[in-house]
C-alpha cells in the first residue's frame, strides 16, 4: 500500500527531466515562442491612439497614465522579484526627479536638456543613499523604512515652500518640443511614454538575465551561500535598489510632463500605496504585471470617478486589493491559469460532494481508507488560492497541483 502511494505523492518524479518550469501565460510572454503575440501587442499599442473612440483625449490620457504608473510599478516588481525586497518608497525617487526638473526649469530657467538628466541622476543618487541603510533591513522593516522615507520627502516638499511652492506645487510649465513635436499633443506624448515604458521594460528584463541579475536572485534565495561563494551581498543589494530608484525616477520625469507639473498630492501616502496595489493587481510575479495592473487601476479609478461604479475611489481600490489578495494572488497576468485552477478545484469539490451524497464510502476515488483522499478533497473544497504566495516574493512557478490527476 505505501509503496505506490509514495511514488504517486511525489509529483517531481513524474515530470520530464528538463521540463521548463514556466507555464501558461508567463511562458508565452517570456519565451521566444511568443513572438507572434508580442507582434500583435505592439501593433495594438501603436494603432491605439488612432482607433480609440471619442472623447479621444480622455482615453489616450488613461493609456499614458497607465504607462508612467506602470513604470513605477515596474521598478517595484523588478526589485521584489529579483531581490525579495518589497519597497513602498518608489514614489520618493519619482518625486525627486519630478521636483528637480520643475525647480530647475520652471523656476531657474535651466533648459530641459540639462534638468531632465539632472533630475533622474539626483533621484538615482538619493536612491543610492537610501539604499545604504535600507538594504541592511529586511521584510517588514524594509517596508516601513522605505515608506518612512517617502513620507519624509512628502513633508519636506510640503514645508520647503520657497523651493517647491508648498502645497500649490509647480505648475504652468511649458512642455518641451523634441524634434519640433509638441508634447502638448496627447498622441505625441503617448508615443513618447510608450517608447520610455518599452525601454524601461527592456532594460529591467535584460538586467534580470545578466550574471548580475542572477546573482540578485541567488541572494534572494540564500544570502549566506552567496557570501560563501565570494559575492558582496550588500553591494549587490545596494546596486539593485539604486537601479530600481533610477527606473522610478524616469517615470517621475515622464509624469511631470504628463501632469504639466507636480504637487505634493501626487506623491502622498495614497500614491505610494497605489504603486503597491498596481503591482499586486497586475501580478507581482511578472514584469508585465506592472502595466496590466496600472491599466487596471487607472480604469477602475476613472470609472469610479466618472460615477459608473457607485463606490468611492479609495474604497473601490481597497476592495479590489483585498479581492486580489484573497483570491487571485497571481494578479491579472496570471488570471487565465488561476481561473482554470479554480475550475478544476471546483469540479473536484463538486464531484467529491456528489460522490459522498450517493454512497458515502463508495471507492470512487480509486483508493480509500488510507487517509489521504479526504484530506485532498478538503483542500480542494476550501477553494484555496492557487499557487501563489502573494507579496512574499517567490518565483511563483511552483503551482500547488494538489492531487491533480
Amino acid at each position, binding site marked *: 500500500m505505501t509503496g505506490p502511494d509514495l511514488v504517486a505523492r511525489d509529483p*517531481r518524479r513524474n*515530470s520530464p*527531466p*528538463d*521540463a*521548463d*518550469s514556466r507555464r501558461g501565460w508567463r511562458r508565452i510572454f517570456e519565451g521566444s515562442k511568443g513572438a507572434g503575440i508580442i507582434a500583435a501587442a505592439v501593433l495594438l499599442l501603436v494603432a491605439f491612439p488612432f482607433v480609440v473612440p471619442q472623447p479621444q483625449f480622455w482615453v489616450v490620457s488613461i493609456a499614458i497614465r497607465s504607462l508612467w504608473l506602470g513604470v513605477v510599478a515596474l521598478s517595484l516588481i523588478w526589485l521584489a522579484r529579483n531581490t525579495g525586497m518589497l519597497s513602498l518608497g518608489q514614489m520618493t525617487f519619482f518625486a525627486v526627479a519630478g521636483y528637480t526638473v520643475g525647480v530647475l526649469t520652471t523656476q531657474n530657467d535651466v533648459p530641459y536638456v540639462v534638468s531632465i538628466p539632472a533630475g533622474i541622476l539626483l533621484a538615482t543618487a538619493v536612491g543610492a543613499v537610501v539604499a545604504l541603510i535600507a538594504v541592511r533591513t529586511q521584510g517588514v522593516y524594509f517596508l516601513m523604512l522605505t515608506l518612512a522615507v517617502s513620507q519624509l520627502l512628502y513633508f519636506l516638499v510640503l514645508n520647503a515652500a520657497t523651493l517647491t511652492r508648498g502645497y500649490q506645487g509647480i505648475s504652468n510649465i511649458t512642455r518641451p518640443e523634441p524634434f519640433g513635436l509638441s508634447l502638448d499633443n496627447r498622441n505625441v506624448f503617448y508615443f513618447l511614454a510608450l517608447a520610455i515604458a518599452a525601454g524601461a521594460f527592456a532594460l529591467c528584463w*535584460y*538586467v534580470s*538575465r*545578466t*550574471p*548580475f*541579475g*542572477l*546573482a540578485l*536572485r*541567488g541572494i*534572494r*534565495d*540564500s544570502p*549566506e*551561500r*552567496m*557570501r*560563501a*561563494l*565570494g*559575492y*558582496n*551581498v550588500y553591494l549587490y543589494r545596494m546596486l539593485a535598489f539604486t537601479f530600481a530608484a533610477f527606473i522610478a525616477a524616469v517615470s517621475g520625469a515622464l509624469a511631470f510632463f504628463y501632469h504639466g507639473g507636480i504637487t505634493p498630492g501626487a506623491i502622498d501616502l495614497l500614491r505610494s500605496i497605489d504603486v503597491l496595489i498596481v503591482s499586486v493587481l497586475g501580478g507581482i510575479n511578472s514584469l508585465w504585471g506592472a502595466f496590466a495592473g496600472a491599466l487596471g487601476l487607472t480604469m477602475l479609478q476613472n470609472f469610479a470617478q466618472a460615477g459608473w461604479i457607485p463606490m468611492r475611489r479609495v474604497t473601490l481600490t481597497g476592495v479590489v486589493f483585498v479581492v486580489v489578495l484573497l483570491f487571485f494572488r497571481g494578479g491579472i497576468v496570471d488570471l487565465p491559469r488561476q481561473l482554470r485552477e479554480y475550475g478544476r478545484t471546483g469540479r473536484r469539490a463538486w464531484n467529491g460532494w456528489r460522490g459522498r451524497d450517493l454512497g458515502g464510502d463508495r471507492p470512487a476515488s480509486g483508493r480509500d481508507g488510507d487517509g489521504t483522499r479526504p484530506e485532498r478533497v478538503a483542500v480542494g473544497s476550501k477553494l484555496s488560492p492557487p499557487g501563489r504566495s502573494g507579496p512574499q516574493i*517567490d*518565483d511563483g*512557478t*511552483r503551482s500547488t497541483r494538489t492531487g491533480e490527476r
Partner: protein
Amino acid sequence: MSAPPEPAVPASHADAVLAIRGLDKRFGGVRAVADLDLDIGHGERVSVIGPNGAGKSTLFNVIAGDHRPTGGRIVMFGTDITGESTRKRAHRGLARTFQTSKLFSTLTVGDNLYLALCGRPGSVRRLRNANRDRARRARAAEFAERVGLGERLRTEVGELSHGEQRQLELVMALATQPRLLMLDEPAAGLSPAERGGLMDVLTSLDRDVTLLLIEHDMDIALVVGERVVVMADGEKVLEGGPDTVRSSDLVRRIYLGGAPDGR
C-alpha cells in the same frame, strides 16, 4: 573533559593551510567552541566527528567567517584572517557546504552552478547576457555531469530530491576551484548508492585541495579522513589517525554510552 590520551599529530607548519590557535566562540552563556587548536597541512584530509551539539558546525562557521570568534586566531594560507569577511575568505580559496541546504531553490541547476563559477572577482562581465556566456555554461554542465545531474540543468533546484540537492551542494563548492574545501555532513540523508557516489568524488579529489569534513557517518569520516578530530562540548578531545579513533574507548563512550552512569 579529560586530556587526550595520545599526543596530537602536528601538521608541518611550512605548508599549513589552516592554523587555528585558542579559538573560542560563545553564544551568550554557551561556549560552543572552547580554546581549540587545529593545524591542517596542504592536501590533508581531516575529519571532524563528535555528537550533536559538540560545536562542529560552529567551528565551520567561524572558520568560514559567518561567525566572529570571541577569542583566538585563525591563520589561513599564511595570513591572519580572524577579522576578515566571508567573501574575502572565499576569494582566498575557501569553499564550504552547509549542513542544511542553502541552495538557490528557485533557480535551475545550471544557474546554481553558474553562480558558483562567477563568485570570484575577475573576468566575469556582470552585465552581459548570462545565457550567452558559453564557456562558463559549458563548465557548469561539466560539474553537473560529475554528480549525474547533467540531464537536469534546466530543472529548478527546489524540485530535486534531497540526495540530488546534497550532491549539487558538493559540486557547487568544487566549482569554485577551492584550495580548502569544508564539507558539513555531505552524506546526511543520502541513499547507499548516493553515498557510494559521494565517496568516489571525495576519494578522487585533487591532492591540491585540502579537505575538512564534518561527518556522522563513520564509514566516510574514517575512510576519507586521514586524520580525525573528535569534538565534544566545544573542545577537541582526541586527534589521531582513523585507527586510533576506532579503537578509542573515549570515542566509544561519547558516541555509544553517553555519560558513564549509563544515561
